[in-house]
């Protein structure tokens, strides 16, 4: 286990370095003088010179990257041109909001996806199975920003049950917080529920055909116990790993969901900084996202080994 862990840790280092180069390299795509673009409305040559000085734009690119990376490693992701605060503090402020949303979305996804997958596998080729498969296709094909708008129309505009936008921290008023996040969480969880349903269905179908399930049935156990105890436990292993990969979908989805419901999280930070041409923030946020994603994948790999005794060695 320890060797496995250290090997995997060593593997992610080159990936992280390449990711950072890629993100840094984005800057080279900017058309024209980056200092001019970073300055926004400002045209004062003195300010431009200051920016060039601050970002070492007069130095060769590898040198610029070196200084940027040096800052990143010491926790300095750069400075927001517009908000006049450090990217790290912006990230620290917005991340909890998105994490709350992501956690709730995950509850929605697990709560719908896994039962739907079990039912459709157990009742294969019945109306239940077709229904669950249609749900999965719907979930995979619906753009979540459209679903968000439709839900606002139904639950906020027509029925008046939930607020259409805004965000309240759970610490301030948990009821209001729940009311502001339940729709976005559903929108975000919907697509992942579809993916989880498909994975659960195929893993369950495989498990239901296995020898140990036949043995369990032969022992005369109730079907319910066979399905939930014997088949499901074994089927969950691949679902965990494949489910962890959906974290990227969650982060991508958060960008649009937060935009629609005006939730001041991570995703909205990216979009706002794109429009404010606050490129340092875009780079910082993408770097944090990618790092989180890589670490989560590593944890999923570790979890896979932990729950699968055959792989432990």
């Amino acid at each position, binding site marked *: 286990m320890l060797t496995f862990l250290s090997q995997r840790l060593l593997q992610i280092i080159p*990936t992280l370095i390449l990711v950072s180069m890629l993100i840094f390299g984005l800057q080279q795509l900017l058309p024209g003088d980056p200092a001019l673009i970073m300055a926004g409305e400002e045209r004062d040559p003195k300010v431009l010179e200051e920016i060039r000085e601050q970002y070492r734009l007069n130095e060769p690119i590898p040198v610029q990257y070196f200084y940027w990376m040096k800052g990143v490693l010491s926790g300095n992701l750069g400075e927001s041109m517009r908000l006049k605060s450090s990217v790290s503090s912006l990230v620290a402020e917005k991340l909890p909001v998105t994490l709350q949303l992501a956690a709730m979305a995950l509850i929605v996804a697990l709560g719908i996806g896994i039962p739907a997958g079990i039912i459709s596998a157990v009742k294969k080729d019945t109306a239940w199975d077709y229904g669950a498969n249609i749900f999965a296709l719907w979930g995979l094909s619906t*753009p979540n920003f459209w679903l968000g708008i439709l839900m*606002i129309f139904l639950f906020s505009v027509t029925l008046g049950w939930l607020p259409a936008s805004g965000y309240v921290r759970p610490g301030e008023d948990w009821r209001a917080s729940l009311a502001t996040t339940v729709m976005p969480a559903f929108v975000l969880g919907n697509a992942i529920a579809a993916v989880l349903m498909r994975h659960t269905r195929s893993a369950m179908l495989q498990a239901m055909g296995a020898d140990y399930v036949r043995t369990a049935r032969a022992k005369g156990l109730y079907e319910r116990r066979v399905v939930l105890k014997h088949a499901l436990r074994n089927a969950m292993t691949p679902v965990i790993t494949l489910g962890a990969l959906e974290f990227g979908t969650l982060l991508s989805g958060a960008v649009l969901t937060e935009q629609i419901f005006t939730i001041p999280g991570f995703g909205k930070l990216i979009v706002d900084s794109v429009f404010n041409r606050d490129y340092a923030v875009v780079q910082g946020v993408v770097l944090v996202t990618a790092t989180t994603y890589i670490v989560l994948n590593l944890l999923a790999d570790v979890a896979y080994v932990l729950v699968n005794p055959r792989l432990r060695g």
Partner: protein
Amino acid sequence: MTAAAVSPSVAASEAREENPWARAWRRLKRRKGAMFGLVVVVLFILVAVLAPLISPYDPIATSFTQVRKPPSWAHWLGTDEVGRDVLARIIWGARASLSAGLVSVGIALGIGVPLGLLAGYAGGWIDAVLSRIVDAMLAIPFLILAIALAAFLGPSLTNAMIAIGVTATPVFIRLTRGQTIAAKVEDYVEAARAVGNPHWRIALRHVLPNIVPPLLVQASLAIAGAIIAEAALSFLGLGQQPPAPSWGSMLNSAQRFIAQAPWMAFWPGFAIFFAVLSFNLLGDGLRDALDPRHK
């Protein structure tokens, strides 16, 4: 034995001689979902190509007497916040969405397949370097990388297509590489090498044709993803620029008028949904039809 009563054994021997594409097409035809997908895809392509002929109005002509009118005989799907016909904009918007889907997947195939072939066939350090780059790109969630690329390139439909295409590339590199490595050890590649074919010829004439089926499946599913991504970028203002019509940007303005003019939000969303659904169904069907391990 008469032709009318074909026994299973005869059908099986005919299937053995049937060329693989004809067999795949026969299997695909049996799948209702895939055929539905194919029909809708063809319909969307026709709508996009024939837009100038079938569009009832000019998609960018504004009319201040027709602002936010609900669906009527004159405007079947209603009008938007500056009096433009929603149906006309959806018809013209099909051009942006479909071309974004096709062009960006074309870019991804154009870069991904040669690089994947190179990595898989050459192996060694070339493979190691390319695979690490693929890992790095896949470590950034799809839409976030596309947004970042589009942001740095500048907002326009062309740049959105480039951003989506580049973002979709690593999946094709990885798929092509894996398939190439698997095909490389097959007897037919061994035979081609034994008769003295040069490497490039083996890669292009012997390996590539044999890995087309999985690429086709992936391409079809990637088009679905690219259409959603283009709609998302346009929704955020990073794709098609106003007043040119696109489904994503229509949803963006519709959101502001959801209480007064909900029809502005329904139809563009349905258009995206059906386009994406059809490519997904087609991709699923192709996978089942082209995979020899399936029945």
